[in-house]
């Protein structure tokens, strides 16, 4: 037997599928390809999804040798990563990446783990271990018609193994050289035939990045580390009804690039979730409610920002006839954030409709539309001389319309063409809307950082054309895609906006969150991926992205740390090759990207443009199966360079990882 069977991380099939939730494993075994519900809300084979999507499987994750989710995404075409710190990586899709990137919505089994405070994703605060991830679904382009605000540029949904349908037990211990340790434990416990619980624990202590440059005067040393715990259960209440429960908590700290400077950032989160799904005469009804809580600080007291999100959503999936199905969705959402100056929050009421029309056996047309209505509320004191009053908040509401349309044509059994269009909305973060931070005694002169309740959401209009072809002669699949995108009403957060000098004594420098114009993006992606039955596998991709903008921001004038036009590498290429033989498994992955621009802060008053040259990264992993239940793996990250400048932050160093995994 040539193929390496990692039984310890490969979940076993459980009972035949429960009827009310997507059994990804059973459906994937059925159709011979991954299944996703992240495209339209309905389960679809990846080849039939009416969006531009990549799926990173558990096999891909394991073979990458990654110890965190950004590491597992690094070689995905269309993904742009910046490693700012051992605990701080920013992930962007098709450009517009930046420190604390607000333009990527990330979900864990459909629950938002995107943080609404600054509008960011802290990857170390996601309560999931890599070994419990079934697949990571990456939607490139807007998908607001399904997910609402913030799904404007891309969505990543992390799907874990199901506590009812899957069986899994794995423990992992990884030692990094030098000074890195990572451990995780995941177990699914069946409770009779109709219930199951998944328990997940993990922790990581990582070595801070080294090699600061002249523009980074002081990166705080806070001992980068993180830990997560989660428990998730599912009960089959009756043959037609299923109940799910989830609890999680996370704690992470590290040196983070906050845009204008590095800070020691401390984040704690917790969540509680309950879901109910039931078959009925009027379709498959789903009810989902959750609460997220977050405490963020750049001091070790976890409380400077305190955010809470409550979400209640319900949907009905209905098969109308042989050719048509419908999904009706309603949502209520309440966001609150306590920050300097007061408490900001909003309520959102949303409704959406998805219609899947199978025109012929080879042609389907999917349309989704959604309306979000947001009302803002603010309880606090607006900054003096800002011109804002509480009435500016009390009277503020936003109505947003978004849509997604996709035409999928299976021209032959080997060729498929997808044409899609979408409009997504990016809402300003709570911080951008409401921060009222005044520094009257600042040595360089008093100043204030002020949010702007009148900001409009960025509207992203996207068009795409994809062509996929199976190449059985070389056991591969070729994908070529084109996209064009326009972002209207771009905005920048207060600390990245040009100052407004008030000619009133004392002279305050006011930094207002500001609308900045529009941006364009267009590009092409080509990827080839394949493998032989003997275990050999290969892949290659090339991405070209151009992001001209028309913002009016004076980049590099010491104020703005975003530069939409130059912040995206135009050219990115990846290549991978791997093989499995007997107990061995070996993989090599490489990525090259062209130059781009970042920013550095030599002090708290100034920002400097920082042009990064092209660079390459090569990762290698080799694993050996000791027994059916244990394996050992050795991973070299950034094998090609001992130290490499990838961002305006500190260099990224080469590292080696030794990993022991046991199944039980």
């Amino acid at each position: 037997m040539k193929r390496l069977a990692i039984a310890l991380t490969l979940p076993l099939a459980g009972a035949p599928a429960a009827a009310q939730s997507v059994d990804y494993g059973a459906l994937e075994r059925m159709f011979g390809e991954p299944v996703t519900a992240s495209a339209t809300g309905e389960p679809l084979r990846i080849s039939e999804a009416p969006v531009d999507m990549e799926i990173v499987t558990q096999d891909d994750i394991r073979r990458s040798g990654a110890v965190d989710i950004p590491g597992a995404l690094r070689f995905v075409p269309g993904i742009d990563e910046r490693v700012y710190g051992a605990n701080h990586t920013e992930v962007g899709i098709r450009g517009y990446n930046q420190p604390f990137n607000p333009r990527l919505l990330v979900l864990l089994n459909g629950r938002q783990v995107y943080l609404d405070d600054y509008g960011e994703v802290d990857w170390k605060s996601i309560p999931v271990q890599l070994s419990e991830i079934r697949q990571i679904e990456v939607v490139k382009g807007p998908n607001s018609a399904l997910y609402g605000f913030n799904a404007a540029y891309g969505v990543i949904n992390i799907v874990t193994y199901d506590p009812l349908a899957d069986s899994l037990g794995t423990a992992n211990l990884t030692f990094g050289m030098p000074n890195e340790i990572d451990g995780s434990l995941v177990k699914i416990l069946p409770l009779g035939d109709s219930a199951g619980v998944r328990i997940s624990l993990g922790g990581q202590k990582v070595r801070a990045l080294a090699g600061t440059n002249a523009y980074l005067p002081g990166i705080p040393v806070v001992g980068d580390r993180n830990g997560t715990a989660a428990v998730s259960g599912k009960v089959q209440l009756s043959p037609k009804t299923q109940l799910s429960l989830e609890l999680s908590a996370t704690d992470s700290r590290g040196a983070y690039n906050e845009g204008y400077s590095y800070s020691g950032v401390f984040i704690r989160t917790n969540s509680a979730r309950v879901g109910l799904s039931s078959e009925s005469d009027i379709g498959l009804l789903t009810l989902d409610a959750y609460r997220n809580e977050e405490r963020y600080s750049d001091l070790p007291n976890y409380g400077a920002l305190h955010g809470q999100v409550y979400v209640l959503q319900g949907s009905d999936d209905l098969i109308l006839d042989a050719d048509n199905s419908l999904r009706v969705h309603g949502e209520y959402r309440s966001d609150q954030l306590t920050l300097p100056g007061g408490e900001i929050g909003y309520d959102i009421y949303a409704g959406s409709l998805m219609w899947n029309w199978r025109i012929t056996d080879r042609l389907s047309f999917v349309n989704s539309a959604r309306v979000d209505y947001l009302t803002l509320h603010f309880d606090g004191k607006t900054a003096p001389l800002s011109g804002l009053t509480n009435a500016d908040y009390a009277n503020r509401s936003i109505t947003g319309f978004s849509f997604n349309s996709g035409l999928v044509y299976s021209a032959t059994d080997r060729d498929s063409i997808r044409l899609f269009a979408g409009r997504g909305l990016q809402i300003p973060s709570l911080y951008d809307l409401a921060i009222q931070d005044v520094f009257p005694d600042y040595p360089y002169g008093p100043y204030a950082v002020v949010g702007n309740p009148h900001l409009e959401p960025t509207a992203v209009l996207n068009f795409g054309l994809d062509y996929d072809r199976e190449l059985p002669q070389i056991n591969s699949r070729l994908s070529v895609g084109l996209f064009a995108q326009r972002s209207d009403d771009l905005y920048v957060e207060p600390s990245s906006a040009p100052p407004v000098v008030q000619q009133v004594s004392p002279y305050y420098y006011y930094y207002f969150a500001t609308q900045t114009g529009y941006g364009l993006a267009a590009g092409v992606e080509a990827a080839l991926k394949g493998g032989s039955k003997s275990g050999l596998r290969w892949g290659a991709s090339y991405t070209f992205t151009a992001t001209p903008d028309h913002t009016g921001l004076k980049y590099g004038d010491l104020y703005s740390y975003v530069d939409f036009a130059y912040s995206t590498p135009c050219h990115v290429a990846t290549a991978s090759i791997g093989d499995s033989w007997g107990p061995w498994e070996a993989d090599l992955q490489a990525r090259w990207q062209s130059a781009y621009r970042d920013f550095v802060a030599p002090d708290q008053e100034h920002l400097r443009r920082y042009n990064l040259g092209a660079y390459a990264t090569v990762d290698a992993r080799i694993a050996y199966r000791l027994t059916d239940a244990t394996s050992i793996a050795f991973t070299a990250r950034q094998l090609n360079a001992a130290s490499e400048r990838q961002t305006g932050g500190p260099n990224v160093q080469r590292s080696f990882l030794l990993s022991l995994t046991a199944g039980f």
Partner: protein
Amino acid sequence: MTARRLSGRLGLPLLLAAVFAIGNARAADLPSAGDIDAISHTLGFVEGMPHAGKIRIGVVYDGSAETGRSDAAKVVDAVSAAAGPGSTQLGAVGIAAADIGTAADVDALLLMPGLKAFTRDIVAAATRRHLPTISTDPQCIEQQLCVLWVQAEPRVSVTLNTGLAEALSVRISPIFAMMVKRK
């Protein structure tokens, strides 16, 4: 008209005719190992199937056909060797279509090609016991014989006859029903 020009003119129709003939021959073929694997997975989405132990499949054939019994015996052997959905196993027994009214107790019927003449008997038996009827014969959906038409090559394809499923009181997972072709 030269022979070469004639063959050039007739080439495409002849080729299409040949492909059509191969297609029909394929349609009448016995279920492949891939087909049986796909059928096994499909059963995991039919409500009422056993969650453990053995799922019993009745392989229905035309006993009056020349190779009906022997073909069915091959399929029974192949099905009996296959794993079922989840932790189940498949078991199979051959059933002559003429005897289906008195056949042994099974959980599903796998229909061999060429059973149109027995439609009434098969549907009556399936209705009485709420049995899903499955086939790899593309004709079966149009003939109102099978609830599920399953095809593994060139890519897995499942077609669900929603009307017949309702008539037989066979319930399919709604999530699965959303993902397959429906007639």
